[in-house]
């Protein structure tokens, strides 16, 4: 029997496969398709202090092997989450993480401290990387000083596992990752979506209402993989890798590059059962390569 479990700096995962925020709803939308509790963890939709209506329609452009979204963190706010959604999540026997988003440090801090009070939420993923909100969001995650400042502010009020999600829309993601570590992050996850654009040539108009939006899906994998490899060799805290993971082989590549766990995002739209297939595929891979545990695979890239 291979050991699929991963210890993410104190956060125990039964296997390295989690779901990416904004692509898995609150988990229960997938109950018809899979046993959600069999995953290493789920990360629910980005949650902000106040409710947000999100951006105008259209919010979606399909691109070769990918998509661009401009959802803009539509959610009903943290109070609604705590009162109406959280009670439906306590049935899951896996880690349920909340993706905390915002536009000012005060908003983030207030939102994180509300989540801190929820016993069944062992960790948050701090989203300082959303390209789809006008203020805040990605602005924090593109500057090392602002990153360290916001992470330390959250660290003061959030006492469980603090994962910080990084944006790829920067010159040096390593500098941002180090700043998150210095601010007190327990782990970092990367990448959020890449800023992209789609044009309808016939109509000479942007395809999505916000003109630019966040690109995800298979097409972004090589960039994500490179960033995970760079960051995992520059920080001591564990790295969670994501971006374009469509199957078990993709997930294995991220683990080899140095990720301790992965998140699966856009692939859930194409196959709602893909996450459990990826868990099975990682197990098969380990067996085929005579490895006893996922930890043997992590950071096993041979460059000689």
């Amino acid at each position, binding site marked *: 029997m291979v050991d699929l479990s991963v210890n993410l700096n104190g956060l125990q995962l039964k296997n390295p496969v989690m779901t990416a925020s904004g692509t898995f709803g609150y988990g229960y939308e997938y109950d018809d398709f899979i046993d959600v509790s069999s995953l290493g963890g789920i990360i629910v939709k980005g949650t902000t202090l106040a409710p947000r209506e999100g951006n105008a*329609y259209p919010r979606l452009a399909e691109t070769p092997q990918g998509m661009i979204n401009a959802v803009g963190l539509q959610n009903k706010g943290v109070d609604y989450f705590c009162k109406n959604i959280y009670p439906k999540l306590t049935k899951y026997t896996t880690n349920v993480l909340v993706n905390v988003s915002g536009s000012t440090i005060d908003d983030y801090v207030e939102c994180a401290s509300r989540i801190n009070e929820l016993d069944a939420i062992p960790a948050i993923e701090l989203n300082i990387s959303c390209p789809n909100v006008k203020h805040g969001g990605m602005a924090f995650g593109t500057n090392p000083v602002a990153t360290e400042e916001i992470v330390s502010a959250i660290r003061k009020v959030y006492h469980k596992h603090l994962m910080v999600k990084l944006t790829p829309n920067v010159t040096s993601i390593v500098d941002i990752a180090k700043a998150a570590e210095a601010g007190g992050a327990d782990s970092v996850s990367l990448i959020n979506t890449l800023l992209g654009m789609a044009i309808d040539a016939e109509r000479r108009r942007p395809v999505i209402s916000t003109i630019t939006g966040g690109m995800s899906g298979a097409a972004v994998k090589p960039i994500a993989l490179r960033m995970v490899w760079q960051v995992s060799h520059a920080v001591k805290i564990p790295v969670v890798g994501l971006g374009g993971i469509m199957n078990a082989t993709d997930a294995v590549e991220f683990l080899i590059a140095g990720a301790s766990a992965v998140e699966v995002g856009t692939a859930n*739209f194409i196959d*709602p059962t893909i996450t459990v297939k990826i868990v099975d595929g990682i197990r098969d891979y380990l067996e085929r390569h005579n490895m006893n545990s996922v930890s043997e695979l992590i950071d096993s890239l041979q460059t000689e």
Partner: protein
Amino acid sequence: MLKRFTTDFTVVAAEMIDCEYVLLTLKHPEQLPEINAGQFVEVKLPDSATSFLRRPISIHDVNRDNQTLQLLIRVVGNGTKLLSLLTIGDKLNLVYPLGNGFSLDKAGNRPLLVGGGVGVAPMLYLGKRLVEMGAQPEFLFGARNKSGLLRLAEFEKIAKVNITTEDGSVGTKGFVTNHSAIESNIANYSSLLVCGPMPMMKAVAAKAKAAGVRCEVSLENKMACGIGVCLCCVTETKEGHKCVCSQGPVFEINELKW
């Protein structure tokens, strides 16, 4: 909400209609689950370099005895082109049945089912279900010309079909709103159930509102997930953004900001 599945169906018939439409008959390996009229499927496209996401397509017909579903698809781009190239024996993965469907219990006993173009697709199963329930539905279909009138023989087996064509080649010349069913007799119907291009649905909705007749429309926003998680497919309603995939695709017009 009905339980949803992801299942490999087998293509048992693939019929091209006028080089522009394809009618796919898909067989389920076992008994079909419960399906509401107006629900849709998300079709996984055969591997393609450029078309990545699933495609939402209405359920055209359901045959429980044969364990088959039918999809009526208009070829408009690469994804639908790939679907038109399927042949007998091919597998097609569906996530289904999705969305809410039309409210059969509120349709009353004399509903008018209005379809424009390929928007007639959900009307066949809908008409059959209404007849089963004892209602006496009527159809009103609009098309550009004669060849845009799809599956007429099938519809005529169920109920009276009223027709308008833009070029006047069959039925009343003009749009569905020019037909006497809507222009002068709208108040005789218990409800209007509509699917078609946006301008047509808005025009019909305006007539229904003016006449005080209950009206439901089926929207076709662009979708990624089809199951209410990505929030890409929203439409503006009086209660804020709602997902067309999971809270629609069918909306009662007073819910919308029309």
